[in-house]
């Protein structure tokens, strides 16, 4: 397998039109993997600094929003002398189709990673259509 470049950079999230933020922190767009499995879709998002208490997942109509709040916990008497990443909240918005069974969505957070399991609705599961030979 080809190794991907190790270079990483946090990307700022797109600002939502007409929405003003009340928190001063920068919002980042988490990197995600989306894997389609047989009966479900698995979404994995890198959100370091987030745990199960600070993550918020909302589903409104077709809009799935993942939001993670990050609190800085470095002592005050320290000075930042080298910076490769910024600290801020995470947000990313997805649209989901009717193929997802909305009641069955499961979310877990572990070691700064959010995993969302979106089960497929019965109708969306691949159906095998038998072909009958004409007689």
């Amino acid at each position, binding site marked *: 397998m080809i190794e991907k470049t190790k270079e990483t950079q946090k990307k700022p999230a797109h600002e939502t039109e007409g929405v003003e933020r009340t928190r001063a922190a920068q919002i980042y767009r988490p990197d995600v993997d*989306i894997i*389609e499995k047989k009966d479900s879709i698995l979404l994995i998002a890198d959100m370091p600094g987030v745990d199960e208490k600070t993550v918020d997942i909302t589903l409104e109509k077709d809009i799935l929003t993942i939001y993670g709040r990050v609190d800085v916990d470095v002592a005050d008497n320290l000075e930042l002398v080298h910076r490769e990443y910024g600290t801020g909240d995470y947000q990313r918005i997805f649209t989901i189709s009717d193929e997802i069974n909305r009641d069955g969505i499961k979310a877990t957070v572990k070691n700064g990673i959010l995993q969302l399991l979106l089960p497929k609705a019965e109708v969306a599961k691949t159906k095998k259509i038998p072909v009958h030979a004409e007689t």
Partner: protein
Amino acid sequence: MLWTEGFDIPLRGFNPWTNLLRFEDEMNRLLSRFTFPSVSEFPPVNIWENEQEAVVTAEIPGIDPKAIDISIVGKTLVLSGSREPENVKEEESYHRRERWYGKFTKSIELPFPVESDKVEARFAKGILTVKLPRAEADKPKKITVKSA
């Protein structure tokens, strides 16, 4: 910066570039909101310090803390480990693949020598925090001037 090359600031009086220069200032002002830290190798680290200690934080989400190898050689802190890709079976497929995975070794130059046996590391919520107390011999000394 946009359009900084190609012309000098013209003389006073009629200046066809004035509006363009104003536009440039405006654009730079708008774009400056989007400046972010320089591209770094995985994992990205931040270094904090005061006179007594240095603290290195690294964003390594999803890794088993036991699998992170931390070593100190002189003034260099080395973090190494690997982040495994998701186990994807044959009938499964990626729709999107943005997360980085693989083996990493990252060397970080510390601002001063440290007491390597007093280094503490903590891993929580995908963030590794390494506390490195400054070497006793290297700490700044205050010298009081005695009056004769």
